[in-house]
């Protein structure tokens, strides 16, 4: 062990004064690294963008990072593993500037120094403690070891919020905070003693939202900015499987409607436009809370007519003072006319942008390979694809940071099966930057041994403090407050 330390020390001594180890052959090529962090834009204070050199023949990696506004750090070893504090200091110093990364790789006896690449440090801070997400095997029907987790963005620490270990046999989904603030959040538990958890001001309320016209418990949710109302989709999700070569499965809903819960009275508010035979799904309150966006597709005979599911993006006025919906529904994007499906609308919290997914069909975008992210300027209603963020595989399930300059989304670009989280920023003109994969201590090792998919990501302004044991007890106890329908 001591020998190793001496070798490491000597290596560091040799390389500390230059861009690469002595005698390195200079290559004009860019280094092959995992993850691809070349030319990505990051927020200051993010966890170090550690990376691995790709290839089985790599013996050692040496990386030197220089800031355009000063500062320099290095990492050497099996992979580029930067010191967290040094990295934070460097990114803070170079906010609005760039980091130039020079990578040298040792194979056998010789070092190769590659062409440097840049990492841009955004002038916009990322106003979040971390991320919340669900980890789930990318399966079909059987849930397996599901868990909702939170992850600090400043380092690599992950903490469980609620896992299958605490509540065996239950499915938990859609942890939804109010504008990323976990002081108010809602979540669903399915299975025996299932229910809807509404957490506000340190108090957890368990509700049974199934009542009368609300045929199933709430699923995809969105908080009204006031914190009083939560809009939920109420639906029955089904899957069918393809026999063939190309696609795996089709996810569809046999019905889907939207209701709003008044968390002060535990009453549900229904609007006929959101509870008809069409399928209304993925509700999202606008930044000012005066309207509710959602996707809508006409009634079809499913699964037979699965190819005809084309969602439009609509909005309906909502008056928070009276808790009532308006009558006029606006169609922002018409799926049937455009022969596309516009799904999972997410207005930015500053009211400027509308991000959504576009796929050739379906109202469950994560299962559609051609699902891409698009953006609309809510001032002009001009829309465009986020080409910087899209790939040949699925991009979906996106959420904004509280300051609306960053967004997180999931993508299956690595292998077409396992969704991973990417972060990107948006400038004042709505231009997105090249996204970066959620950093990990040893990214190759982590992501190649991680067989679970990241699901339903969102930002967390602060760490979620939820007593898992209490939640488990509440679930087992099964006491639920029955909601009523507001007349």
């Amino acid at each position, binding site marked *: 062990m001591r020998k190793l330390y001496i070798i490491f020390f000597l290596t560091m001594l040799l390389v500390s004064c230059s861009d690469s180890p002595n005698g390195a052959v200079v290559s004009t090529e860019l280094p092959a690294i995992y993850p691809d962090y070349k030319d990505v834009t990051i927020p200051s204070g993010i966890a170090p963008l550690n990376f691995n050199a790709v290839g089985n023949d790599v013996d050692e990696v040496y990386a030197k990072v220089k800031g355009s506004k000063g500062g320099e750090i290095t990492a050497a070893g099996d992979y580029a593993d930067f010191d967290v504090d040094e990295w934070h200091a460097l990114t803070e110093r170079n906010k609005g500037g760039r980091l130039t990364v020079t990578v040298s790789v040792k194979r056998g006896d010789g070092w190769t120094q590659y062409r440097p690449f840049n990492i841009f440090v955004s002038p916009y801070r990322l106003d979040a403690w971390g991320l919340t997400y669900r980890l789930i*095997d990318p*399966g*079909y*029907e*059987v*849930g*397996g*070891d599901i868990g909702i987790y939170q992850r600090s963005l400043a380092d690599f620490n992950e903490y*469980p919020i609620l*896992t*299958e*270990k*605490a509540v*065996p*046999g239950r499915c938990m989904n859609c942890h939804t905070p109010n504008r990323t603030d976990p002081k108010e959040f809602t979540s669903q538990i399915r299975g025996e003693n299932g229910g809807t958890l509404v957490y506000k001001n340190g108090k957890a309320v368990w509700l049974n939202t199934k009542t009368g016209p609300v045929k199933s418990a709430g699923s995809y949710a969105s908080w009204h900015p006031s914190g009083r109302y939560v809009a939920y989709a109420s639906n029955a999700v089904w899957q*069918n*499987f*393809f*026999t*063939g*070569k*190309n*696609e*795996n*499965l*089709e996810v569809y809903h046999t019905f889907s409607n939207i209701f709003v819960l008044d968390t002060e009275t535990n009453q549900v508010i229904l609007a006929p436009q959101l509870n008809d035979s069409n399928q209304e799904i993925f509700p999202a309150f606008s930044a000012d809370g005066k309207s509710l966006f959602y996707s809508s597709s006409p009634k079809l005979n499913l*699964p037979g007519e*699965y190819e005809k599911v084309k969602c439009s993006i609509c909005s309906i006025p909502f008056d928070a003072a009276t808790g009532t919906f308006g009558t006029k529904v606006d169609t922002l994007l018409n799926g049937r006319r455009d022969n596309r499906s516009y799904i999972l609308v997410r207005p930015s919290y500053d009211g400027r942008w509308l991000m959504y997914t576009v796929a050739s069909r379906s109202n469950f975008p994560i299962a559609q390979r051609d699902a891409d992210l698009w953006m609309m300027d809510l001032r002009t209603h001009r829309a465009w694809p986020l080409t910087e963020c899209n790939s040949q595989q699925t991009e979906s399930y996106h959420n904004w940071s509280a300051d609306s300059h960053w967004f997180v989304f999931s993508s299956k670009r*690595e*292998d*077409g*099966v*396992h969704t991973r989280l990417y972060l990107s920023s948006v400038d004042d003109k709505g231009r997105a930057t090249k996204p970066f994969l959620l950093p990990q201590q040893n990214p190759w090792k982590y992501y*190649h*041994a991680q*067989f679970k998919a990241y699901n339903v990501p969102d930002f967390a302004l602060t760490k979620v403090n939820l007593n*898992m*044991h209490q939640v*488990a007890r509440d679930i*087992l106890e099964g006491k639920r407050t029955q909601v009523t329908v507001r007349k």
Partner: protein
Amino acid sequence: MKYIQRYWKIVVSVVFAIAVAVFWALPAVSLLSYHEQYQLFLFTADYFRERLAVPGGLADYIAEFITQWNYIFVVGALLLALLFFVFQRLTWRIAKGEEAADVWYPLSFVPTILMLAYMCDANVMPSFLVALVLVQLLMLLWQKVACGANSVVRVAFIVVVLPLSYWLLGPVMLVLAAYIFIYVLANKSRRLSPWIAIGTAIYAVATVLVVAQFRPEPLYRLFGGLNYYRFPAYIPWPQVAMMTLVAVFPFLLRLLPAAKAKIAIPIQIISVVAGGCALVFFSFRTIANEIIDYDYLVRMHAWGKIIEKAEKKQPTTPLEVSCVNFALSQKGQLCDRLFEFYQNGGEGLFPTFTRDMLSPISTGEIFYTLGMVNDAERYFFEAQQAIPNFRRSGRLCQQIISCEIINGNYSVARKLLHELSHSLFYSRWADERLAMLGNEKKINADPVYGRLRKFRVSKDYLFSDTEMDQMLGLVYTHCYQNRNAYEYLMAYELVQRDMTKFMEYYPIGRFAGYTDHIPYAIQQALVFDWTQRHGSFDGMPYSIEPQWQQLMVQFIQAYMSNREDPVLSTPPLSNTFWNYMLINKRKAKGTKKESKEVY
């Protein structure tokens, strides 16, 4: 005589261990396979760390290390027998420490036999046995400490060993605590303070309660064991009974009075052997184990043995029936011998998907062989997902990887192969597949992958288990070399008693390449259909062998005169489509319903 007196105990123990090894290696070999296929032991530091991160993790790690050897069943059986041997010997050593008389040695087999019977439940994890053995070692150590050391060492032992053993072995620590408790109270002559007993009890419970503050699992699981039973939410009462027995057994033996060896020993041996055999026999002969046996035979591709097994005892559950039909298809006998075996409709060919870890495996194998690779992958994946303790499965990983390779999803396959390459028995297979990835020529030349790539239909369509015939029709018409798909299609219509569709699909069999004879069940159905519309066999356009015409006549005569005629329920007439179509209709419906609950 001297030697006998000196070594009889160890000889009896060795004989017992051999019997246990034979039990695991022969009748219970399928249970070894079952355990092995629901874990994937990896030689990585992360795997070790992951195990040790939970209470009972060391016992799990050791047990999983041992269980991986079940891949070579004989070695697995020997290792398990060794564990039972050690368990029994330690039971005796502890009892001996409590001054049990040698004459009661045969009784020391009782906990071991009970454990063996308990382990006939395939979901009892070897972890539990490993944990019990290790805790017995600690019980022995306590005997030494209690006798030889001073009170500081005794207290130190309790303070250190109880929490440590809880973390490494799990709640069998409570066995140690209970043993110490009784030991202190039962050995007053050793002048141990009763406060040690009280303190031990409180400390043991407190240890679990403290751990509970840092663990997500509910308290009852932390007291009952996280991985002693495969279904984590369930703590079986025999487990609690076993734990209690291990703690109190040494003191029970001590209570027995002295007895004459010449009488007591043979009586004990006879009683223990007879009682033990009966107990293990009845614990082992369960429907669940029968199903596991079928799954094992499918895993081994032991088609002949499956058919033999079914010939001895007709299967009844959908899974068993589907395994028999699968074996028949692999032997090329599906449509020849279909009705020699019990049939329960389409369920017996493609059991309805259930969210468990066993039944989707053999169904997945059926889809895989038919070239319905996506469906097979789904079933394999779901089976792995359904493993209640969330372990991964070497067998299922292999199958999933094969599906990914056939479908050309190399990045996912590579990822899974890298994982498998850290295992002992799957690494070679994984390395071979890794070398194959991306090499289309090599994959297409592979006898299995190449064939299945040809069988896959090129257009995507939605799977529907209520329209299996349409799917089989598509699969077969996509590639006429896939005769198996045609036989499944024909068998499906026959067991569904759908003559209209049978007659509709029958003609496409002309591409299947039958040169010897039309499969017998198909001949029977053709004759049946003909006789429904004609008064004689004259002009029948099919190549029906005379024997079927004669039997049909015989069947009609018997059926028309007396439907209860015994000749109808004895071969050869009982083994015909006509019998299934006309006589067994009601019976089949009843049995299908009954057989639903097994898995």
